[in-house]
């Protein structure tokens, strides 16, 4: 597994793109794996009772999935030393149709001295961004 060539990176360059499909099964799987059993992530009646438009994906599921194209591009999750997001819009997962997340990762900033790059994530559901200030800091030096 080779690390991308740091010297060849340019600000604005798209390094990874991916569309990910979620269904309710993904939410149940994430609930079990993470221990977050808030029923708004699997029960329509509970989601409706607190005024939500439907069952929502866990924000942390969206955050967790959104970084994977960067992990695959860089080839080693251990090179990610900082990852932050703001949860700006919920992802409603329809019981039949599920939901599609459209992820694009591009170079936001390059630090030549430290041999690091900030990768900015654009994550959309139905055309709207769902994560704000979604930034992944990647270390290239060994």
């Amino acid at each position, binding site marked *: 597994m080779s690390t991308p060539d740091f010297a060849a990176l340019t600000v604005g360059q798209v390094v990874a793109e991916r569309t990910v499909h979620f269904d309710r099964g993904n939410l149940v799987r994430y609930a079990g794996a993470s221990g977050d059993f808030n029923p708004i992530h699997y029960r329509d009646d509970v989601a409706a009772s607190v005024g939500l438009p439907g069952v929502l994906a866990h924000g942390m599921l969206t955050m967790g999935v959104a970084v994977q194209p960067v992990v695959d591009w860089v080839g080693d999750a251990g090179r990610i*030393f900082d990852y932050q997001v703001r*949860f700006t819009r919920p992802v409603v997962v329809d019981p039949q149709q599920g939901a599609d997340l459209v992820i694009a990762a591009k170079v936001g900033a390059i630090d030549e001295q430290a041999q690091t790059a900030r990768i900015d994530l654009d994550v959309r559901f139905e055309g709207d961004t769902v994560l704000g200030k979604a930034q992944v800091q990647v270390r290239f030096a060994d």
Partner: protein
Amino acid sequence: MPVNPELPGRTLPPAPAYLVGREKVREFARAVLAEHPLHHDVEAAQAAGYADVVAPPTFAVVVQESALAQLLAEPDAGIDFSRVVHGDQRFRFSRAIVAGDLLTAQLTVVSVKSLGGHSMVTADTVVTDAQGEHVVTATSTLVVRGDDE
């Protein structure tokens, strides 16, 4: 009950130690659609210099969770969990979490702010390994919706 404005600066006792299991890493990786071999294949992880399979970056939230639960359970915190929405999340790593790590999480409240009837509670959870070395700091902002929402 509003969020206690005296919370900032409070550090809770360390949460019980968390032993990172190999199958838990694989299970979490499947759940976040992390297919990279370092998350699943021990030989690949060891060839890359790790002791065992590598947890996806957001796995740190599982370790943070017990510390956040302690905060919510503080009798004077005034944080009504049914009104809590996750505002933002950040992880700052010294190294990746790997299977076999024995991790301890300790939370400190950074700030409590009011914004348009809501309260924003920001907390740092510092995660250290069995040697006491820093692994990751997980920072969460919880938005506690006001009564009129």
